[in-house]
């Protein structure tokens, strides 16, 4: 009990952090798995949404709701733009799309700085969420605890949509067998656009909800992109369940890891990725993918 008690807060924080990364990475893995786009502008969509949410939020509850909606709208709009831009090169493979989205990320990052300034703005959340909440005898920031609850609810909804609805079936089919899907009367191009917009909306949702946790700054796009790429790589490209486990793992490595192994903390995340890649290659073969 002593060890658990000593490390309860970092462990819980790892879950909060991991769930945030999961929402981001879910979009990234969806765009890759179903849309076929390796979207290197995904972090920029997060940043765009976080800046937008920070502008909208005024510290009231309706303000918070509006901020999250504005974040989703910003992310979805960005996803729509990417869908249009990547459509003409859809057949030219992942490298061409990666280069295009990388360029979009660079230009987008500059635009964000021009529009929102180079300050790191602070988002205002309702004061009730700024208070510490007592949990098992420890204090933990109220907003993060609420976020954990919201993210779990979102995960359940996401799983339901993917696994149990017609839209989800179409999305899964577009990964496994786009030709069969087309034969069934659903245009793979439309599914692809829809998936990219949905993936953008997920980045936007994460940015809107996550702004008080990983706030908007000039470096946030790269930080978020890098960490969600790690999550996707560890979890297996295109696998949402894998992404969830990987996100929690990356979250814990960054919180518990800092507590338990402070000297190695900066390297832990990459070491984890290396170990996971080797393990997966040994188990599933060199492609390692089980979509």
């Amino acid at each position, binding site marked *: 009990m002593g060890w658990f008690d*000593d*490390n309860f*807060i*970092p462990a819980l*924080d790892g879950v909060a*952090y991991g769930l945030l990364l999961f929402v981001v990475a879910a979009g990234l893995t969806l765009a890759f798995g179903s849309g076929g786009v390796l979207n290197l502008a995904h972090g920029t969509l997060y940043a765009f949404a976080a800046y937008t949410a920070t502008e909208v939020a005024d510290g009231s509850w309706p303000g918070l709701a509006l901020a999250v909606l504005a974040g989703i709208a910003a992310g979805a709009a960005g996803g729509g733009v990417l869908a249009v831009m990547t459509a003409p090169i859809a057949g030219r493979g992942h490298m061409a799309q990666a280069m295009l989205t990388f360029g979009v990320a*660079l230009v987008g*990052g*500059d635009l964000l*700085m*021009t529009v929102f*300034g*180079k*300050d*790191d703005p*602070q988002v205002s959340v309702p*004061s009730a969420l*700024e*208070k*510490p909440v007592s949990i098992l005898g*420890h*204090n*933990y*920031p*109220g907003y993060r605890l609420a976020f954990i609850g919201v993210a779990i609810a979102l995960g359940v909804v996401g799983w339901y949509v993917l696994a149990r609805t017609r839209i989800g079936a179409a999305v899964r089919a577009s990964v496994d067998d786009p030709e069969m899907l087309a034969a069934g009367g659903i245009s793979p191009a439309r599914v692809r656009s829809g998936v990219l917009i949905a993936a953008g909306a997920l980045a936007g949702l994460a940015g809107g909800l996550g702004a008080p*946790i*990983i*706030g908007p*700054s*000039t*470096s946030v*796009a*790269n*930080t978020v992109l*890098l*960490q969600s790429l790690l999550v996707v790589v560890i979890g297996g490209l295109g696998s949402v369940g894998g992404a969830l486990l990987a996100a929690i793992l990356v979250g814990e490595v*960054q*919180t*518990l890891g*800092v*507590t338990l192994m*402070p000297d190695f903390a*900066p390297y832990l*995340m990459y070491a984890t990725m290396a170990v996971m890649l080797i393990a997966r290659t040994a188990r599933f073969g060199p492609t390692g993918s089980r979509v």
Partner: protein
Amino acid sequence: MTPASPISRRSFRVSAAGLLAGALAFTAACSGSAADDKKGGSSSGTLKIGLTIPLTGVYAALGPDLQNGFQTYLDQHGGKLGGHKVELVITDEGDGPQTSVPSVTKLIKQDKVTAVVGLSNAATVAANVDLVNDNKVPMIGAVGRPGEIKRQDYVWHTSYLSEEPGVAAAPYIKEAVQGPVYAIGPDYQGGYDQLRGFTETFDKLGGKLANPDGKTKWTPFPATNNFQPYFNEIKNSGAKAVYTFYAGTAAVNFVKQYKQSDIKDIPLYAAGFLTEGAVLGAEGDAAKGVFTSLNYTPTLDIPANRSFVSAYQAKYNALPTMMSATMYDAAAVLDKAIAAAGDKVTPETVNAQIANTGKVDSPRGPWEFNTKSHAPVQKWYLREVKQDGTALSNVMVRELGTLG
């Protein structure tokens, strides 16, 4: 977490260049309009003073505090320093030397200013030391000062030495806390200087750090924005108080997360920047009860400060910060030095007279330059964040003695 990739730095530079161009255009526009204002007055009597302050970058929020402090002194003295009409030429300091060196160069070579004032960042000062010494133009820094300056002749500071907030606070903390103190700070030069001031003095007085290895905990800078894991270690260390230094966004994150963590009731002491200026507004109520050590508080109850604060508040509708006060003093120093230079006002004669400034009757209380460090010998104050009227303020608790 992750170090900034070269990509982000490059994109940062590209846009920094764009902003710099904008800032230069802005400056040109400013100096143009100032020139138009010279009605009747003989232009030979007008002096140019260069301000190099952050208009872009991480410290951009400090820019107005700096400029408004200098302007307040000018407004109170009919826009004159030492009997001469003054024209301000403002250039961008940006994030560091790549922006500030061209800015200071322009001020010296093109505008032929009498003095360069401002410079929030110690790295900026360090990069310009040779430039101002070679051209014999005085440079008065109002915030960060590098630990060692090899050519001190033309370099002055109205602020303090980086280790002084910690040196000033350590004896009081030793008495007040009566137990182990946990030291934590950002992993870069500014953090080392600030924390060393505290830990070395605290150690000499027989104080013990609560850190398990007896050394300051360094957090990756600027990547750390989640302090929860560190707070956990502080909790488990049994610390009776925490001493730290953070500035900017890191300060906001640190203070907000501190007050929502397991260690929210452990007293928090810090170098003044943790709760200074714009940062305090962003921290809000979470900053209440934080103790900081600095050479200025707007609540200091002396005549020089009362008139400074009321003039500043009347014009800018905000409380002055330490940066406003040190810039105000830079103007006061120049006022004296230019007057003393008589009819031979050149950057060189003004610099020679700065050395003879003597006591400056400052909003922070009287101070004078240390002849070696060219930085103030001044009183230090312990301040506590409290509600002051409608706003939060760093309210004076007690004096911490004189350093410098």
